[in-house]
């Protein structure tokens, strides 16, 4: 332990000492290609390095920045097809995968059952289950469900094996029939992983992950269960290379964010209750909710040290009163409710917003925030931390922030500045990042060239490594910092996953061992796309001295090695 602390301190000291020189130390041509693949994609697949070399690195990067110019992998479309909720509107989702409130309304005849026969059957089944559960509870004597942990996990493993052996369309049906609401995270998780593994537009997927995480919502917070799918599709994905102001606008208007950060309940304290609803209103929020206003500045735009005060938070919250959702549990849309809007004059970051602006008050806030120098710096820093290093060189951030400012927040242009920089292709950045759980799992699948036809077991693994997808409770999103992902339980889980994947013990993923060479050093080269460290090779050699080396074991060992944890 002591040694560890000392070594970390040494390392930190060294880093501080030599940052400048490290970030100006160029890479070899081969290193440049590998580095670009490691950072812009979810890890190289066999053949990727050669393909990029052949095309030319510059051209390849330019393509990745313009995903619409890249032909998509047909393997991806096949896998996305059964995930039907991804194509629906939020209202359709609420009808076809009804949350408890909608189900209750259906039971009482206040809402019609779904028209789609499959969905109708599912809803009827759910209603029956609800009734059975209620009756069981009324009995009072029913034994509480045994929650034995071991049992649950065993069940989950067996269930995943059974599902993996089932045809994808049938499997999706089984999941939805068992619990309709489960189909929503199922579709999202499957799609996210298939895209990360199979899409040819890899940088776009990295950016979609980055921005969803930046504007995080939590799928298990109430109505966000039915609002997250459209949020990712309609608010995040169209803007990942677009103008920051448009992305900000889309998230601010999205029911998913309005619900997640409670703005939909934030009303002017002066609101006169409508008599008819007075009693009901008294139960709900009776004034400002600062939650969104605070996170909007702290996490989405300016950054915690971006120069705003508690007074600004209140003023921004006042501007956003009335930005709400029409029936969130039914997948309702954004509406502006002028009755609960604070009509007075506001001052945000020194800018006066005159009285009577209505819905436009908040638009002005978004303008101010999107164009604030703190935002340019905050977003540039976060991108550089994700794509370059945990402590990115300030000079690079300044150049990115300048591009942000000069282009009115053009995300593609900011990324170009990053990817054109000498700092990106430097010793200081090379292998400087520890893979996040998502990156680790997907890069292992890609490196081993595994065939994935059922991605939920991979998602389960990512969750066990500490990054459950769509389930980050806090609005901060997941950190990309190395320190976040290096801990005992996570490392063990990484090693165990590596061995299991290579040994075809992860349901739904198949590795073809015959693709691998016999010689450990050659296998390591195949999986790492560079030479393994001497220490890793020695350890493997030593282990294999006692028995016949099998490529399966070597692949597993390399995927679990320290070498593979970095990118």
């Amino acid at each position: 332990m002591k040694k560890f602390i000392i070594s970390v301190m040494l390392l930190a000291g060294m880093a501080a000492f030599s940052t400048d020189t490290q970030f100006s130390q160029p890479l070899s041509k081969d290193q440049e290609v590998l580095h670009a693949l490691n950072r812009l994609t979810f890890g190289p697949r066999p053949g990727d390095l050669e393909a990029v070399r052949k095309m030319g690195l510059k051209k390849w990067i330019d393509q990745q920045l313009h995903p619409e110019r890249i032909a998509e992998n047909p393997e991806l479309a096949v896998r996305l097809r059964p995930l039907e909720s991804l194509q629906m509107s939020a209202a359709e989702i609420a009808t076809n995968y009804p949350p408890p409130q909608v189900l209750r309304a259906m039971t009482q005849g206040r809402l019609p059952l779904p028209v789609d026969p499959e969905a109708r059957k599912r809803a009827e089944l759910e209603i029956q289950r609800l009734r059975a559960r209620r009756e069981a509870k009324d009995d009072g004597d029913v034994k509480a469900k045994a929650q034995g942990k071991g049992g649950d996990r065993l069940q989950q493993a067996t269930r995943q094996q059974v599902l993996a052996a089932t045809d994808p369309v049938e499997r999706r049906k089984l999941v939805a029939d068992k619990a309709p609401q489960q189909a929503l995270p199922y579709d999202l998780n499957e799609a996210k992983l298939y895209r990360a593994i199979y899409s040819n537009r890899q940088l776009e997927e990295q950016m979609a992950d980055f921005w969803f995480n930046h504007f995080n919502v939590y799928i298990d917070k109430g109505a966000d269960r039915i609002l997250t799918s459209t949020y990712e599709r309609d608010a995040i994905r169209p803007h990942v290379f677009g103008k920051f102001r448009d992305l900000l606008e889309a998230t601010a208007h999205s029911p998913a964010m309005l619900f997640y950060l409670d703005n939909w309940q934030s009303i002017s304290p002066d609101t006169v209750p409508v008599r008819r609803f007075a009693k009901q209103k008294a139960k709900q929020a009776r004034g400002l909710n600062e939650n969104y206003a605070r996170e909007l500045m702290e996490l989405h735009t300016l950054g915690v040290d971006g120069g705003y005060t508690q007074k600004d938070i209140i003023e921004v919250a006042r501007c956003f009163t009335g930005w709400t959702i029409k029936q969130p549990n039914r997948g309702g849309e954004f509406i502006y409710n002028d009755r609960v809007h604070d009509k007075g004059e506001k001052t945000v970051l020194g800018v006066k917003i005159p009285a009577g602006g209505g819905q436009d008050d908040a638009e002005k806030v978004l303008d101010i925030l999107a164009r604030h120098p703190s935002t340019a710096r905050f977003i540039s820093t976060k991108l550089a931390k994700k794509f370059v290093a945990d402590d990115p060189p300030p000079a690079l951030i300044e150049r990115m922030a300048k591009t942000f400012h000069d282009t009115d927040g053009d995300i593609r242009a900011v990324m170009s500045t990053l990817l054109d920089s000498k700092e990106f292709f430097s010793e200081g950045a090379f292998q400087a990042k520890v893979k996040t759980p998502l990156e680790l799992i997907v890069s292992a699948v890609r490196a081993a060239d595994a065939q994935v036809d059922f991605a939920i077991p991979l998602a389960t693994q990512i969750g066990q490594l500490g990054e459950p997808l769509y389930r980050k409770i806090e609005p901060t999103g997941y950190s990309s910092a190395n320190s976040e992902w290096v801990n005992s339980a996570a490392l063990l889980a990484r090693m165990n996953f590596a061995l299991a994947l290579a040994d075809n013990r992860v349901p739904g993923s198949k590795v073809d061992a015959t693709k691998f060479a016999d010689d450990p050093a050659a296998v390591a080269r195949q999986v790492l796309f560079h030479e393994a460290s001497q220490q890793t090779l020695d350890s493997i050699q030593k282990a294999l001295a006692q028995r016949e080396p099998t490529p399966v074991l070597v692949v597993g060992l390399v995927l679990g090695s320290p070498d593979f944890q970095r990118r």
Partner: protein
Amino acid sequence: MSTRRLFLKSSALGMFGVGTAPAWLSRALYAADAPSRKKILVAIFQRGAVDGLNVVVPFGEKQYYSLRPNLAIPKPDRTESSAIDLDGFFGLHPALAPLKPIYDSGHMAIVHAVGSPDPTRSHFDAQDYMESGTPGRKATSDGWLNRALPIQKDSSPVRAVSLGATLPRAMRGQNEAVAIANLNDFQVKDTRGAGTFESMYENSLDQVLNGAGRETFEAVKLMQSIQKQPYAPGNGVQYPNSSLGQDLMQIARLIKSNVGLEVAFAEMRGWDTHVNEVGARPTVGQLANLLGQFGSALAAFYQDLGDAMADVSVVTMSEFGRTARENGSRGTDHGHANVMFAFGGGIRGGKIHGQWPGLEQEQLYEQRDLQLTTDFRDVLGELVVRHLGNARVASVFPGYEQPKFRGIVVG
């Protein structure tokens, strides 16, 4: 002190030889070692907001019965369908009968009308605040239980353990904290791979991964000694097969194996009883089932540890309480103040701490919920300072520099 201990150990044990020393001598050695033994704090989170008014029942309050015509637990009458009298005013839910002996022994304290001063009634926010230890502040990135760990030069790789697949908010932060889903799984499952990985990470020039790898395999080695033999709980205790029961059994196993555990975290879900909180009678049904699981798990833990409980404190919490008045569907909605339990060798128990605010309309918080008279940080803060011995309470609960101790820890 350390010289004396060393002397005792070498001379006394030398006289008898290891393994043959009489029991009294090893007890004496143990006692001599006592000052250096670590105190352990186990935190249990009841997620979903447990209905504290039906857990520790204010049966002496007339208003309780008018607010809850269908839900109220009847006054103690020594049958299983009534509250278990604690002090003539409060009683335990009958499903918590397993906890009564602990309370009677003086090692279990109850704090009523306790909770977070933040007015939120969102599970999500309230849990977050209770785990970060900073009500109203969302930007706090680490948890109180992690900050509660005293600063230490040489610490065990398993000084902070949470049961479950991921590290809960309360446990996250600067100090090493391990999430363990299952003790037996905390290993490289493939024996062919284990030694190789260990050698890779131990020799790696990657300083960060080398350091973490060493720590990992140290922790694994600690676990191996535990994993080797099946666990036999003390005093013939049988843990319930519930999630909480199994988690507490693993914590007990860690404690008894002396691997340096200081703080542990476990949780139980499902307390959000909006509908059918009670069944045919108030003392059966959903809440009764949950409390049955809860109480039997805690009691099993207490009995299993036996004398080792001297160094252990367990504290329970839930994000907020529930409405004083029952709702129209035999349940309760989100409320405000709640109840906490603390038990262990060093707890001043057999007593209900805190001030009772009453249940009359004008005494209720926002005319509907139990009023808060004790901040949850008063309880946790006292445990941090007086039990764990970490005096830097201001850094454990930033913004709450002076918790008001209620005297739940024997000072």
